[in-house]
């Protein structure tokens, strides 16, 4: 099962993970990662921009790739856009599998691609001013681990 959401409003990860887990009777494990807006560091708000024609189709393709690449029963990907504040969830990836390693690796794979190979643009508000965030070299190195 593939479950992909592009969300414009705050969300509760548990409300997505619960039904996703229940939809896979017989699973051996579920691995879930939730990314939130980090507090501290003077960040007052975060804004994520998307492009209608690419962002959701790209997330769907990423979910398909995870299903093809790992031995999964299902994958759930949810990503926020719009303005967010510290403590709010930005991203959720959950994978259900018969065995744990496939689920853990699929979440790692999907997160590395969402960070630096998905159609999102991110800016932070610090001291009342917005600053665009460039991907870090580590993000590209993380992504390169999955080349084959």
């Amino acid at each position, binding site marked *: 099962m593939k479950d992909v959401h592009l969300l414009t409003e705050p969300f509760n990860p548990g409300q997505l993970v619960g039904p996703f887990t229940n939809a896979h009777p017989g699973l051996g494990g579920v691995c879930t990662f939730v990314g939130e807006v980090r507090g501290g560091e003077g960040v007052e708000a975060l804004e994520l*921009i998307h*492009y209608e024609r690419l962002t959701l189709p790209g997330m769907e393709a990423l979910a398909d790739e995870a299903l093809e690449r790992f031995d999964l029963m299902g994958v759930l990907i949810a990503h926020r856009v719009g303005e967010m504040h510290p403590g709010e969830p930005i991203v959720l990836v959950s994978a259900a599998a018969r065995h744990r390693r496939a689920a853990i690796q699929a979440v790692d794979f999907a997160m590395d691609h969402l960070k630096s190979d998905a*159609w999102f643009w991110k800016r932070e508000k610090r001291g009342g001013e917005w600053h665009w965030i460039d*991907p870090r070299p580590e993000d590209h190195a993380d992504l390169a681990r999955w080349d084959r």
Partner: protein
Amino acid sequence: MAVKLVFLGRLADLAGAPEREVAGPLDWTGLVESFQGELGEWLAGERIKVAVNGTVLADKTSLTANEGDEVALLPPVSGG
């Protein structure tokens, strides 16, 4: 009908608007040369990708956009 340019991320700030309509037909050289300043420098650089009607071009210099097409200018991405 014109060619619709869509500026994503910081390019929208530099362009002063998220979208702009220009006359077609349009090729990549013509598009880059029509912008000055910091926006022109970004567009001339290596880091910009281009999509036409929702399809990312493997080679942006092959761009040929006609009236009614939507051309998206895509700076480096950053999600999660």
